[in-house]
């Protein structure tokens, strides 16, 4: 995907009020927005962020929880081109659309009322089971939920490499430390390692604090060609390179997950993204890793070459991925402590860090940010660069 390197930039970002909406949902207040309502608010904020008129938008990509037509109808958008996808794949699609000339100014819109709607991620009505058979195929044994699949991976990892539960807890604690510096994060109360170790198991060895939040919200991003973005203003952040590699063979049997930890796909995508950006892991100032579960961080760090296989425990130890650490990871608090916007809020956080707009949690002199995602072995990655 070398042709997509450095051609497209994010110029506008918008998010909804995660902490406020989560508190309202906990208090059982009647919901005031649904998925579309959250998407609309995020979209308005993204337009405002980059001072763009909605009639400049000629492309629309929606997240998996929204219908494209209804989203465009709701926002009053007729466009030249539409698409649908998860966060990083939507950014990749936007770059492809810009490269091909299909569209020139693209809105990426996500909204999800998963908490107030009562979305289930395990059991008979497990969300995503229509796309990933393993999420409900093993129901007769009571084997369900994405969390259980990551629990199996984590257990095997611990047995093979000697990682302890205390060492695993570093991820959740580091991300909570970041969330405490993010006024919009859902989980801002402090959490130390002892509190982590005293929290309950869901699927052992994963505890509730290894699981992502289930909260309502929306995210929007505005993408245009980097050339146009430079003329438009100072707040653009360039997408330096993409990488992708999808494992499907033996997916339901869990072989690529449990035997390979998805590393073959990580390595293929890493090779693409680093070669096309002309940088390596050592050049990254911070990283965002898709973290529906804490253990994603271990597998991505090893697969993308940040450390040797089996050495992630050392890599993350003693605050090295937390605030002020060697490689800060999930600097908004991530899906564990900021908001579970299925990879979308990670993109906003990268843009904020590279614009030097991240407040108390700002990574000093941040020029490069790396996003890594491996949802069910569909590995997708993007490196962002501060606009020169």
């Amino acid at each position, binding site marked *: 995907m070398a042709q997509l390197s450095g051609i497209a930039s994010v110029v506008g970002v918008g998010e909804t009020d995660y902490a406020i909406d989560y508190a309202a949902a906990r208090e059982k207040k009647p919901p005031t927005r649904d998925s579309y309502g959250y998407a609309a608010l995020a979209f308005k904020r993204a337009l405002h962020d980059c001072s763009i008129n909605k009639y400049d938008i000629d492309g629309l990509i929606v997240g998996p929880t929204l219908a494209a037509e209804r989203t465009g109808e709701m926002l009053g958008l007729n466009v030249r081109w539409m698409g649908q996808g998860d966060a990083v794949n939507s950014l990749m699609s936007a770059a492809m659309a810009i490269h091909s000339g299909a569209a020139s100014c693209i809105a990426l819109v996500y909204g999800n009322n998963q908490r107030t709607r009562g979305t289930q991620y395990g059991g008979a009505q497990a969300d995503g089971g229509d796309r990933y058979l393993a999420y*409900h195929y093993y129901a007769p044994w009571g084997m369900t939920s994405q969390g259980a699949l990551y*629990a*199996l991976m984590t257990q*095997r990892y611990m047995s093979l490499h000697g990682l302890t539960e205390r060492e695993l807890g570093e991820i959740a604690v580091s991300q909570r430390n970041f969330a405490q510096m993010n006024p919009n994060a859902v989980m801002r109360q402090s959490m130390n390692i002892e509190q982590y170790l005293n929290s309950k198991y869901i699927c052992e*060895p994963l505890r509730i604090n290894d699981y992502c939040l289930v909260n309502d919200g929306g995210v929007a991003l505005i993408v245009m060609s980097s050339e146009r973005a430079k003329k438009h203003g100072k707040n653009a952040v360039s997408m330096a390179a993409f990488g992708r590699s999808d494992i499907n063979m033996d997916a339901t049997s869990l072989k690529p997950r449990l035997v390979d930890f998805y590393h073959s796909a990580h390595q293929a995508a890493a090779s693409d993204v680093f070669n096309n950006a002309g940088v390596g892991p050592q050049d990254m100032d911070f990283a965002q890793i898709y973290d529906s579960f804490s253990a994603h961080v271990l597998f991505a760090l090893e697969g993308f070459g940040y450390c040797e296989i089996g050495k992630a425990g050392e890599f993350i130890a003693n605050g090295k991925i937390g605030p002020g650490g060697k490689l800060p990871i999930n600097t908004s608090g991530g899906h564990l402590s900021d908001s579970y916007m299925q990879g979308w809020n990670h993109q906003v956080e990268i843009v904020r860090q590279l614009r030097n707009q991240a407040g108390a949690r700002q990574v000093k002199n941040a020029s490069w940010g790396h996003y890594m995602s491996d949802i069910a072995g569909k590995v997708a990655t993007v490196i962002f660069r501060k606009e020169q």
Partner: protein
Amino acid sequence: MVEPTMNRPNPYPGLLEEPFWEAVDQRNLSLQNCKSCDHVWYPPGPVCPECLSEDWQFKPVSGYGKVIAWTVFHRQYFPELPTPYTIVSVEIDEGPLLIGGYCETNSKNLEVGMRVKVSYEQATSKLKDSWTIYNWVPA
């Protein structure tokens, strides 16, 4: 030990799931085996995922394998299945990975690579009065 007869969620429905579960009912766990290239695969599918041949058969497997990973469920997801319970992933000697329950709630005696063998158990569900499911016990 797992209860001798348990109410369980129904198996996933499908044309090719039927012969799979019929073999389990006969206590003769069988997987699809390609007559063209000898590949063995799971879960069931319409063609050999290696050579795309439709010329395959359900063939009994040895019922032995080694533990790949396990997890203990503490959160209850199905009303029929009280927690805690242990789930194991087993690489059978023929290659594919299968899921199943482990005979003990306690996972303390499990080890990666440990030899296990298949064990059959009578079950009921909302749709069926009596059917058979398989689990794993130390070999």
